[in-house]
């Protein structure tokens, strides 16, 4: 059947729903239900995490194709099947999702006090959708998960969010949906042309060049909103500011990666000509994102907003890497996405810690926290440095690879993309200075407690991963080296084919 001997991907995907059903069945007074819901969600997500580690252990890094493949007939008349499988590009995103979910559950332990049952249920449904989306090998199945993510996320922002949550939730939903429905049309066009929605077949179907441009545009509409790329990024700061901490963590950690993953899974390999045609356009938007949103981040008063804008800038580096079409660039984009998934998620948790204590995210309300919260200051420092891209942390590897990759395309591209690193250092260090250093003047700050054991448990794995990725990137890049190599080769061959034909004709 597959390397694990049983349908492990389906198990990882659907197990959280089982936890959700258990949570729904809990009866009793409010406190009992809340406590049961928390523990059930935690255990479910931990079991899923352990199961997903099987993927880590059993994944064959030498194999560029899909592994752990499952296939069940679903709509035989339409050649649509329930197909699951992972390759080097998706497997680590699955792990990222299963890692961040228990962390989110832990981070919301005390912060969420109303409707705990529904909250935990939403997170488990969200986990199913995220994992399913990264595992799907059928376009229709992919689309279902891709859009299905919107339902729990909309509710998480809207029900448990801040004061402007309604506006933020609606904006998030409608922005993303607009992009997605255009992708749906592209899906239908490809389905009609190829006669199937099996992604393994679509990856080797060549579409006519004129059609590729349109398809690329439709995909772009969907993934650019998800990434998000400038100028369709405006939903992100609103969504982040209003979402509860754990919602921001998932949003920054996994949901933004869905856009990058989409570009790597669909746009680049399926539409080589379209991607090549649009690459300069993508570079332009990415460079604007890197420079402009970094500058915007400098001016922010709200910590979450600052990190949200920094996410846009970091994801701009990712899109530069993807569209260089060389091994270093794409590998760097992959690394940057994983690193950002951990670091920005951690930064939102860092903000969440002091927000839980003081219920404000205004930067000027803080200062001098190092005197009262030394452990917290260290944790914050680690992630600030990782966000800046200090060598030895995860942020460095991705950025340097992307810059090398982009240098092979154009000097100016790498120069402009690299300015993001400088500006990034400016806003991140300045934020750190204003919050952690300085004189401790306010009384309420003097009473702040350092990290609790629960919070240390939340941060420990993230700190560990940040250094692991920084010091020994090989253990992560080896997962996707084969797949990325094959993708780049396929891309070059597809672009060369028409030229080759023209050469023969002459």
């Amino acid at each position, binding site marked *: 059947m597959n390397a694990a001997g049983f349908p492990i991907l389906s198990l990882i995907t659907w197990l959280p729903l089982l936890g959700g059903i258990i949570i729904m069945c809990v009866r009793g007074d409010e406190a009992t239900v809340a406590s049961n819901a928390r523990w059930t969600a935690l255990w479910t997500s931990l079991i899923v995490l352990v199961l997903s580690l099987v993927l880590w252990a059993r994944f064959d890094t030498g194999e560029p194709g899909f592994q752990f493949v499952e296939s069940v007939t679903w709509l035989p008349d339409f050649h649509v099947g329930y197909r699951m499988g992972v390759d080097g590009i998706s497997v680590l995103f699955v792990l990222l999702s299963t890692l961040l979910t228990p962390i989110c559950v832990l981070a919301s332990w005390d912060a969420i006090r109303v*409707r705990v049952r529904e909250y935990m249920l939403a997170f488990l449904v969200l986990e199913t959708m995220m994992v399913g989306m990264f595992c799907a090998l059928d376009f229709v199945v992919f689309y279902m998960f891709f*859009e299905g993510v919107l339902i729990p996320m909309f509710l998480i922002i809207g*029900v448990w969010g801040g004061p402007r949550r309604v506006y933020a939730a609606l904006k998030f939903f*409608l922005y993303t*949906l607009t992009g997605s429905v255009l992708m749906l049309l592209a899906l239908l066009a490809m389905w*009609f042309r190829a006669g199937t929605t099996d992604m393994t077949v679509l990856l080797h179907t060549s579409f006519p060049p004129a059609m590729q441009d349109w398809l690329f545009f439709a995909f772009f509409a969907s993934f650019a909103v998800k990434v998000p790329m400038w100028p369709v990024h405006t939903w992100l700061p609103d969504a982040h500011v209003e979402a509860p901490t754990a919602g921001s963590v998932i949003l920054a950690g996994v949901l933004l990666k869905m856009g990058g993953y989409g570009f790597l899974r669909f746009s680049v390999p399926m539409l080589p000509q379209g991607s090549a045609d649009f690459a300069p356009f993508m570079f332009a938007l990415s460079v604007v994102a890197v420079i402009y949103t970094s500058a915007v981040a400098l001016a922010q008063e709200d910590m979450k907003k600052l990190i949200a804008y920094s996410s846009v800038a970091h994801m701009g580096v990712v899109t530069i890497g993807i569209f260089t079409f060389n091994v270093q660039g794409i590998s760097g984009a992959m690394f940057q996405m994983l690193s950002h998934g951990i670091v920005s998620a951690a930064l939102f948790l860092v903000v969440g810690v002091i927000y839980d204590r003081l219920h404000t995210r205004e930067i000027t309300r803080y200062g001098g926290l190092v005197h009262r919260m030394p452990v917290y200051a260290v944790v914050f420092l680690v992630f600030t440095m990782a966000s800046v891209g200090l060598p030895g942390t995860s942020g460095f590897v991705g950025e340097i690879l992307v810059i090398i990759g982009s240098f092979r395309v154009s000097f100016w591209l790498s120069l402009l993309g690299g300015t993001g690193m400088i500006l990034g250092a400016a806003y991140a260090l300045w934020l750190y200075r204003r919050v952690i250093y300085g004189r401790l003047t306010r009384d309420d700050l003097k009473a702040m407690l350092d990290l609790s054991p629960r919070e240390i448990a939340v941060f420990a794995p993230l700190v560990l991963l940040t250094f692991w990725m920084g010091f020994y990137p090989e253990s992560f890049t080896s997962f996707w080296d084969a797949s990325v190599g094959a993708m780049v080769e396929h891309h070059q061959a597809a672009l060369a084919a028409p030229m080759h034909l023209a050469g023969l004709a002459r």
Partner: protein
Amino acid sequence: MMNWPIAVPEIVLSVCGMAILVFGVLRRQGSALICTMLCLGAFLLTAMLMLSTASGIGYSGLFVVDPFSTFSKLLILSGSVITLILSLDYNRTHLIDRFEFPVLVLFATVGMMVMASATNLMTLYLALELQSLAIYVLAAFARDDARSSEAGLKYFVLSSLSFGLLLYGISLVYGFTGTMEFARLAHALTDPATATAGLVVGVVFVVTGLAFKISAAPFHMWTPDVYEGAPTPVTAFMSTAPKVAAVVLLLRTMATPFGHLLVQWQQLIVLVAIVSMIWGTLAAISQENIKRMMAYSTIGHIGYALIGLAAGTPAGIRGVLIYMVIYVFMNAGCFAVIIAMRRRGRALEQISDLAGLGRTDPILAMGMVIFMFSMAGIPPLAGFFGKLYVFLAAVQAGLWTLAIIGVLTSVAGAFYYLRIIKVMYFDAGGEAFDPRPPSISLVAAASGVFTVFFFVFPAPILSAAQAAAGVLFG
């Protein structure tokens, strides 16, 4: 050729209806419940008879039984059954629990079943008339309520106008071809080049008359007022079974006799679909009354369904049929929730009355969330699949403009569906609704399960729709 047994289900249902009517008259007081039960039994019996009726054509080409008609009739019967279940409690609390109600629903259903089988413009007209007459009375059923009477009258007057247009169209078609039988019309109109201007005008009038019945814009004006005024179970009825019947009637009329005139009527359907989608969506956004909002939502959904017809292919027809199945069940679920909106026995209709439902009745609120996301077409809920198949047909037929407008209006439509969710969960709430009666919970739960789990095993409905659609465009 008489071949009268092919209409046995309809005959049996009519006889049952008359018997129940006599029974109710003789028994007078307090016979509403038992008559409803008898009608439900009659529907069940009809469904069983229908499944055992062989396909064929009878009554000298007036009436046909084929997979298409059987598929449609089963769906129509489901809509009627749901209506009767929903009406049980509502009619009792609103003191309109008279035995005529189920009997009228039954006769409307007979009309709709004949509509699904009509293969002659005359049968078509008579069946439509039977269905409409019953519904005029149903709309005005709460006769002490001015709004209900107004709804009945309005529906009657505007509907008569549309019948006038339809009859005019039929007479033109008859005048230019000399026949009303679908098969002969199809034969006479094989070459679109020979279609005279008068005939095309006739077809346009027929389409207009039917567009009125399916409340497609720009012939939708009656819908919001009638939906708002009619008793809620009647609104639920009007938005499900008769819509299905009118849509399948339109499908058969366009595909069989006028199938070769595709080029002539395609632009018309495209236009009607676009106007319905846009107007249904935009007008729904500003509604405060949930029944009015549902009326505009129906208009929008009809627009999406018409995309499949505009494609003019069996794949498109299949898309429409799947759309209607899904639409009936999620709509029934929505109306179950709307009927449950009641405080101290008084029905509430404002969207703002739903505020806080997420806290006071989490199960019902979760049901409504499911229906709203499904209506908005978010996967993996059923509503998404409805849209998927019609858009697929549109893309296959190369109708890109229609498909792009369709997906964009579905985003705009998501806004007003999300508004309901916003009100239920995000707004500070009022007090709890009255306890839900079991009949309402039953309908909501059944529709909810259908909507959520449709994606798990859709193959039976898809292949049934496939077989049904294969009959048209023969």
